[in-house]
């Protein structure tokens, strides 16, 4: 699953390069692991990734207590993991994280689909600190820039907005907030309380960024 993701990002980097030889915006992938067993096999991990043709610029071996610091030192803007507790730890310390879900339906391999989900039920104490709003906004702006390099149709990158519980007006303000942060969404779904599970196989995101939109507001 993550491998497909990496390949997609690699492809996107290539296309970005195609668009403009001086392209500075790129997806830079850092592989981080806190599993001590894996760390002992560090060299085999590195060669394995090379073997599979995965473009990874940096490897980082940390332990569970301070992996978030490693993330921060490496200027990681988005942390992808399938481990829920790791994700929430990172978020609490101000690093934007997203869960890689294990879905039955495999997402398309020709388009990276990023879902932004407005979660009306975010606890106030697990949100990112205000100081990091800038970081998130910066990341959003860069993502938006990358998207703009591609055309509207046939893009290798696609943004999806899903508002689960709010009314259409809250969806409208989410659209506007994202837009002012630089992200113009391609697909939008306002569920107004309808269950999300039946449409997940249709949405097919590679990962979901859960934010409350006050994170992006000034």
């Amino acid at each position, binding site marked *: 699953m993550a491998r497909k993701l990496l390949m997609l990002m690699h492809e996107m980097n290539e296309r970005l390069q195609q668009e403009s030889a001086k392209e500075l915006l790129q997806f830079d992938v850092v592989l981080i692991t806190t599993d001590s067993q894996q760390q002992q096999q560090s060299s085999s991990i590195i060669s394995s990734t090379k073997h599979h043709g995965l473009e990874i610029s940096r490897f980082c071996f940390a332990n569970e207590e301070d992996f978030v610091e490693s993330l921060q030192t490496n200027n990681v803007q988005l942390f992808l993991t399938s481990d829920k507790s790791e994700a929430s730890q990172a978020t609490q310390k101000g690093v934007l994280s997203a869960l890689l879900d294990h879905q039955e339906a495999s997402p398309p391999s020709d388009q990276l689909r990023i879902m932004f989900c407005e979660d009306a039920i975010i606890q106030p104490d697990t949100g990112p600190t205000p100081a990091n709003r800038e970081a998130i906004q910066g990341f959003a702006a860069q993502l938006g820039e990358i998207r703009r390099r591609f055309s509207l*149709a046939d893009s290798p990158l696609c943004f999806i907005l899903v508002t689960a519980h709010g009314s*259409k007006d809250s969806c409208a303000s989410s*659209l506007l907030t994202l837009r002012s942060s630089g992200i113009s969404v391609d697909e939008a779904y306002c569920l107004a309380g309808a269950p999300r599970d039946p*449409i997940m196989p249709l949405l097919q995101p590679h990962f979901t960024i859960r934010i409350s939109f006050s994170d992006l507001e000034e």
Partner: protein
Amino acid sequence: MVKMSLDSVQVMSGQAKELKVAPSSNGDSRGSWEEKEEFHQDNLGLTTKPTPVTGRRARKVEGGVFFPKPENAVTIAVSTRVLFRTDREQKVFQQKGVEEYLRYQIEHENEPFAPGPAFPFVKALEAVNARLRELYPQSEELFDIVLVTYNHAHVGIRLINTINHHNLFIERFCMTGGSSPIGYLKAWHTNLYLSADSEKVREALAEGIAAATMFLPEKQTEVSESQLRVAFDGDAVLFSDESERIFKAHGLDKFFEHERDNEDTLLDHGPLKGFLEALGKLQKKFYAKGQRLNCPIRTYLVTARSAASSGIRALKTLRAWGLEIDEALFLAGAPKGPMLDKIRPHIYFDDQMFHVEGAAEMGTIAAHVPYGVAQKHNAKQNTSVGK
């Protein structure tokens, strides 16, 4: 042309004994059709309640906003081009491409669209919802109107602004940015899908979802604001196209023969039978509260079958399905236009473009159900009616 109501059929022919007309769905026995019409006109004059602006929109239940669950509600999905008029924007898209189209939309974000052909229908659905909420405040058995479009989300703000401008109670929507919306229709148990795109409508029908292509009527006619009126053709809409096949292959005589021989065999169901059923369930909720005479939903069968012969099979089938239709109009081949003009339905479903176009010419809001054998004929004589 014979105009008949369900009551009169029993009187006419001895053969109809098995029909057993139950306490008529039309309330107390009214004689001719003309009388009914007057009754309705009085009714219209009386109650044009201005829809209350406060308390009609997001209803609060226990601090949260109340939206019905898709499986409990009657879900009606409409596309942008039938709910609103987007002619100018369509032209931009066709002449200048998608990027220019989206730029145009964003530029005009604060200009609401004008109402489209499905707009009166949606307003009427909301009027019914208002009445249902009065009688059953906690029930989720309501109409749930969903906007399902393969428009790009860049148009989202303009659509939401337009919905607000027209005071529509649409909270759910789905902008797929180009991919097929059919999956979402299925996921949300859609009971009816209305679109301007006949391809999408065909796809939906193939998936078992009631669907129809809507066309803008050529002139504006007034429809009731307090009573939802839905009219259906019989064959290939409520019923299967089996009889039409016979008619097209072997002619009228064979058709009559076949109908006579099979009078006691039920017709198979057509694509819109489920929707009629859903309407019937909501109607019963009004009857249960003593609102039979004042029911804000009224259904019509407008068929070329004739009452004395082929029509009987249609009525028997409806009876056996447990479906009541308020008025059955057997035209025995006469043109449907004038009859529809009298009924003024918010929507009329027919499988033949010939009838849909004829109706639109007279100002009836007609929708084409591209189902059954008639479509092969339609392909040849398809003139595009203004959308």
